[in-house]
């Protein structure tokens, strides 16, 4: 039986607790907190599935065409993950900063990365659950179809491409008060959804919008997930864009966390 491997300690300064068990502990507590008050995540889980039910299913031209239906379901699955990530994380982080527990945690020997990672992962779990109702509605009420391999690959692509939204949600939470965060998230959410072609396929966009759309993380998420589902090779701009957004939002979140000092004094 091996105990948790202690990091090599340099003589004058001990290092903090091993990051992985500490991360697991924070993640566990955050999930427990959410599960004991589950109502918070139910709204964001229902919203995208309802959108599919009301906007796509009645439109038989889309719903009965396997290609269009699959794209519509996929767009709303990306939308579900994005909304959940931005809302749950942005709002949770902003609200927690206004409570005295978070400032207390900052007085513990807790590296910033560990706390951010735990907050993001706990939200990611529930964000991902938000696509389950979308997939069920899509499978039952439309002609959307996907192979088993395509489904698995699509889920992996969706998970990876949702990271910038999680980091962006965390950044919004660290930068704004909870009331301001709601407004910022709502504007950003619909901007990303339309601009990224989650509601209308980008093929229908005018040329200038199609070009602009290629800089949106929601577009990268849509295209990469679509490529994974269809088994096609993703284009370079999709990959480059997704990586750039991931790195950029990671740096932003870390900087904002370090800068943050909790509730502002008035």
């Amino acid at each position, binding site marked *: 039986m091996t105990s948790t491997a202690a990091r090599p300690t340099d003589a*004058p*300064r001990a290092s903090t*607790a091993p990051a992985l*068990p*500490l991360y697991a502990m924070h993640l566990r*507590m955050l999930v*427990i907190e959410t599960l004991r008050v589950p109502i918070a995540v139910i709204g964001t889980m229902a919203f995208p599935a309802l959108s599919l039910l009301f906007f796509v299913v009645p439109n038989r031209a889309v719903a009965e065409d396997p290609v269009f239906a699959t794209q519509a379901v996929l767009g709303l699955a990306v939308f579900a993950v994005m909304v959940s990530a931005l809302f749950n994380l942005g709002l949770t982080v902003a609200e927690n900063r206004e409570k005295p*527990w978070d400032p207390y945690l900052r*007085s513990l*020997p807790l590296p910033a990365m560990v706390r951010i990672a735990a907050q993001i992962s706990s939200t990611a779990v529930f964000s991902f659950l938000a696509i389950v109702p979308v997939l069920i509605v899509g499978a039952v009420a439309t002609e959307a179809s996907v192979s088993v391999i395509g489904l698995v690959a699509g889920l992996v692509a969706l998970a990876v491409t949702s990271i910038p939204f999680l980091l962006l949600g965390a950044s919004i939470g660290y930068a704004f008060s909870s009331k301001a965060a709601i407004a910022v998230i709502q504007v950003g959410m619909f901007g990303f959804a339309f601009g990224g072609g989650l509601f209308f396929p980008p093929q229908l966009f005018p040329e200038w919008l199609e070009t602009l759309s290629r800089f949106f993380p929601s577009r990268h998420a849509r295209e990469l997930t679509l490529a994974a589902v269809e088994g096609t090779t993703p284009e370079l701009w999709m990959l480059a864009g997704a990586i750039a957004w991931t790195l950029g939002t990671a740096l932003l979140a870390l900087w904002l966390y370090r800068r943050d000092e909790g509730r502002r004094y008035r």
Partner: protein
Amino acid sequence: MKAHASGATGAATLASTDAPFARLVGATRRFGELTALDDVTLDVNAGELIGLLGPNGAGKSTLLSLVQGRRRPTSGTVELFGGSPSDARSRLRLGSTPQETALPDTLRVGEVVDLVAAHYPDRVPTAEIADEFGFSELLRRQCGSLSGGQKRRIAVALAFVGRPKLVLLDEPTTGLDVDARHVLWAAIRRHHAAGTTVVVTSHYLEEIEALAERVIVIDHGRVLADDTLTAVRDRVMSAVVELTSPEPARVAALPHVVRDEVVGEGAAAAGRLRLTVDDADAFVRELVTSGAAFERLTVRGASLEEAFLALTLTEQATPLAASDRSAS
């Protein structure tokens, strides 16, 4: 009950024994227009039990938040165990209390203790810390269901769960009844005797008198006094004297009177004076020697606020402090 005799061995384990555990040099913290902490310089040394005394809003919590790395000073420097407080590694031997309202409502007490303890290399087992601070029967309860007093006990226990070398206790006994307060004081003294350095803030003079060896009085973000308990107590040994006299102006002009006011209304106000004096014994001697007529003399110890007032006014009387204030 010597629970932690082995865990906390005090200054001996430190590489450099004479380095302060925490050091503030010219630390100033502003929030917009408000200066919460104004050019504070002080060391917290190994083995001390320091009382940080000041009214609400004096800057005590701001000072602690700088040492905890939760906030950065606007100017000046703050060190914790020789490093930057914002480096998580500097905080490994630091323990603090959350505000009692801070505990997450949905988590169980045992879960909160485990979460906090997970940050420290050598933790106190949950059962042991719960037993010491008297909340063993609450471990399965969600924090939201606890009373204020129960939360406060748990909050203080959290500061000790990682066997820290330096503990910062912010208002540890606010809202506790007398018995609970004495139990907590005993725990703080026990940990200090076992080698833990303790900084405790309070706006109760009684609490500071019961616990501290060194007292730092702070108000308007500035250190008014930093000395042994005895020395500071002598400086704030002000008292409130009430008497009725036909010649109030003469009485009010006597030495040692820091502040005077007429009390009561109508007929009752006839010559009834309330005086804040910085030394009751000396004042009474002056009063008697002066030959001024008086009756119905009462003397009581000043409340902390009155004592602070006396201290601040005394400071103001010195030319240096006076010029300093007019400049601001």
